[in-house]
């Protein structure tokens, strides 16, 4: 096990592909994406019941053990969600290496 940061991002579903590309560019070692979530935040209730997924969210989880990359990801994500809304949480975790 080695220490790492667990970055969790909630963003709207239509921007998932864009965020994934951004994470690739920023050097994230990988990510997991949970689709079709709903929620509430500053921009109101998002029921996830729309055909277009405009009011649907998704959750990205990124484990990253390189501090510099973490900082880069946080900055990159901040810029994205400043434009579109969303949430980004960073917490400490341990990564079990196989």
């Amino acid at each position: 096990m080695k220490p790492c940061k667990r970055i969790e991002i909630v963003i709207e579903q239509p921007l998932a592909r864009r965020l994934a590309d951004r994470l690739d560019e920023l050097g994230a070692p990988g990510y997991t994406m949970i689709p079709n979530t709903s929620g509430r935040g500053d921009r109101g209730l998002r029921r996830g019941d729309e055909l277009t997924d405009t009011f649907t969210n998704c959750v990205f989880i990124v484990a990253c053990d390189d501090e510099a990359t973490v900082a880069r990801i946080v900055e990159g994500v901040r810029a994205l969600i400043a434009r579109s809304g969303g949430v980004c949480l960073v917490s400490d975790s341990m990564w079990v290496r196989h």
Partner: protein
Amino acid sequence: MESLFLVNLTSPPLLFFFLGAAAALVRSDLEIPAPVAKFLSLYLLFAIGFKGGVALSGDALDGRAWAGLLAALGLAAAVPLYAFAILKRRLGIADAAALAATYGSISAVTFVTATSYLDGAGIAWGGHLVAAMALMESPAIIIGILLYRLYGERGPGEQAGIDWRELGRESCLNGSVFLIVGSMLIGWITGQRGMTALAPFVGELFTGMLCLFLLDMGIVAARRLRDMRLGRMGLGEGAGIPFLFGFAILFPLFNAVVAGSIATLLGLPEGDALLLTVLGASASYIAVPAALRLALPEANPSLYLPMSLAVTFPFNLLVGIPLYHQVLRWLVSS
């Protein structure tokens, strides 16, 4: 006149729309699972596109048909321009541009419901109207975004310049546009032979699938209205909801007058004239919002989506279609 409205309101698809709305209003937990609702919408686009293509393959387009197509394209370009001119006095540039795109484009399901209204009334309509619908989906998106670039200030996260390739992809290759155009092409290529193979699927099931889809639309539309009324859409105080509601009813009426007059001037047959009018009056809640979230994330979807989905769409379905029909009849007979 009453009879047209009554016949419309008591058709099974409309009644299922009411049923869905009623379910949401009394807070029943009735719900169509999201993947199924998406499937129903894919089915409707597939079926209407394919049937339109087959119809197109049958008869050569005459001059009037071409004129109708041109008129459709003209409408799709003109509506967002005057919509933007009106809206930018009241709203921010991004929201005005987004609403211009929304109302300049069309709603395939409103169109589909109008065709099923015509079929029920035994009035013929031409397959090229499906082409007109497909033609009208994308231009307004491009125009809306260009208007934003022209008038808007650039935010911190945005690049300078327009990425035309992205823009083209997001407006013209949007999933629902792609499926209608593609199915129309396939219907056109396979013609009567294809229709023989697919008739039970795209023909006989159509009304039933439309009923289920409108059931879902009724639920979603009524939920949005409730959420708006309860201030749950994150719109803030001064959003001018009465103005938005008024716009979402009056602007389609105005566009219907414009489109209907053109149709009458061109001498289009009754069914085609009604469909062109309905296209003009309808606003997009599938193709345009999907494109706007990518191309114009600054615009607030809580404005443009509920307006087209929860106000304009039901209005056209319940009142608009028979009203436009009545007025067109009156225009022609006078």
